[in-house]
């Protein structure tokens, strides 16, 4: 039975088509009309998997913009989607760190994948993807290149500003002082990792820990988190890429719905 999970995020809308295994995934910018974007991304995932719309039995939506997706059958919270998707990929995980464009979440789950506790930062851009985006603009470096470049850093420099707006000015003055770009990028990753590590510590660190969401694609950020914690976080790779874990979770919950 084919189900669809949609994750209507603040920046990107992701879709995952599932039937015993992941059939296809796709992502598109959420844009202004989120339902239209969802429609569009669903069609491209259907094309990829070679499936017709009528074959879908159930669509479950999650994410900040889920209320706009009227064609979905059910909706679930991002916390539930994070837990379900991660537990499917890594059953050993007890703590999930999900960092999206405008939100950071920490979710604790038990050995059955049930949510025990969670924490959210949705009030401040520092600690979310928007922070890296602003810094990549200030540095004039493509956001996709930030991770690799930071690995070439040879020096650790501190960032004083927490606020994204103030950090932007700080990065500009670092550029003016002829600071090495790679070192600045590493400092940017360290800053956002510090914010998220403290959120993680507040809720309590319990292994294994997985890192999901768009920020998990940034190798420099993953390294910064690993450095902070002193061990390696699990980042999904084979089942789906890290930004699709919530969409996968939604597709799995859609499976549960039709099975009753």
């Amino acid at each position, binding site marked *: 039975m084919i189900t669809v999970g949609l994750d209507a995020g603040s920046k990107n809308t992701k879709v995952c088509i599932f039937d015993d295994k992941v059939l296809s995934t796709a992502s598109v910018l959420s844009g202004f009309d989120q339902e239209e974007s969802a429609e569009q991304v669903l069609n491209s995932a259907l094309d990829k998997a070679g499936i017709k719309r009528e074959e879908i039995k159930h669509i479950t939506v999650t994410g900040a913009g889920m209320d706009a997706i009227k064609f979905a059958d059910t909706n679930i919270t991002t916390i539930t989607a994070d837990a379900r998707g991660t537990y499917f990929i890594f059953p050993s995980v007890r703590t999930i760190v999900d960092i999206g464009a405008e939100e950071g979440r920490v979710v604790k789950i038990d050995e059955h994948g049930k949510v025990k506790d969670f924490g959210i930062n949705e009030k401040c851009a520092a600690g979310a993807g*928007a922070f890296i985006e602003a810094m990549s603009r200030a540095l004039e470096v493509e956001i996709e290149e930030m991770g690799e470049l930071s690995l070439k850093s040879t020096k650790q420099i501190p960032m004083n500003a927490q606020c994204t*707006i103030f950090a932007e000015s700080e990065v500009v003055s670092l550029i003016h002082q002829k600071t090495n770009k790679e070192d600045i990028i590493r400092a940017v990753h360290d800053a956002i990792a510090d914010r998220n590590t403290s959120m993680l510590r507040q809720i309590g660190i319990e292994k294994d820990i997985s890192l999901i969401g768009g920020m998990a694609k940034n190798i420099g950020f993953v390294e910064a988190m690993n450095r902070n914690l002193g061990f390696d976080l699990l980042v999904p790779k084979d089942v789906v890429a890290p930004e699709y874990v919530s969409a996968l979770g939604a597709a799995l919950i859609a499976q549960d719905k039709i099975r009753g």
Partner: protein
Amino acid sequence: MSNVELDKEYWRWTESRYTNPDLNWQDGDIISAGVDVGSVSTQAVIMVDGEIYCYSSMRTGSNSPDSANNAMDWALEGTGLSLNKIQYIVGTGYGRVNVPFAKRAITEIACHARGANFIYGPEIRTVLDMGGQDCKAIRCDQRGKVTAFLMNDKCAAGTGRGMEVFADLLQVHINDVGKMSLKIDEEPEPVSSTCVVFAKSEAVGLLRKGWPKEKVLAAYCSAMAHRIVTLLLRLGIEEKFAITGGIAKNIGVVKRIEDELKLKAPEPSIDPQLAGAIGAALFAKALVEKEQKKA
């Protein structure tokens, strides 16, 4: 820089200088000065016997000593007065320890309270200083001495920098933002008051929805006012209440703060952005008097 280029920098407020035509520095006993090197703007105020003789107000450059020198040079321009004739100079603000010619550095909190006392009178008990990269709520006594304060310097929400971001986004000159935000029929829901980045993306959404700039600015000014009022209420307000700093010139924010507090702040007779430098110059005068007493 040509005027055309300047026009594109919407965040850039107008720099200014002034000489008091009614004063003559040669007639004064004590010449003192205060230099306030803020994160965004720098002011130099020179006083003759505790009255403002001349001042300059300009954008802070990439380093504090240069900014202090530039502001001082511009303030002195055309007065015939020179740096060595100033008996005492106090530095204040974010870059206060880097004012090369200052004999002493005093915190901007103390200076703003003292400056507000000078500008608005001794009945002021609560001063709200809205600066470029921070916001301070200060309580003071009848002599302008600080009794308590609270500040936010961690987050751009509620600071001048946040307003600059919006001026740039909407392509409205920073000097016009406040007035423009009042040209609305009905006060809209405020955007996020906790994060400028999120407020900005909300604003982009509102513009796409077809909201006029005035309404978007209103939504931001009221978010900013709300954020600042929260800080003030945490400290506790005692009347009379006055506003200093660059944002004090933004009528859109000031009016919304007044409405939310149901309190009126007095109209400034002197540019409220000078409060810190005025306070510093007054401290400098007091320090000269102290030295004279000792001697």
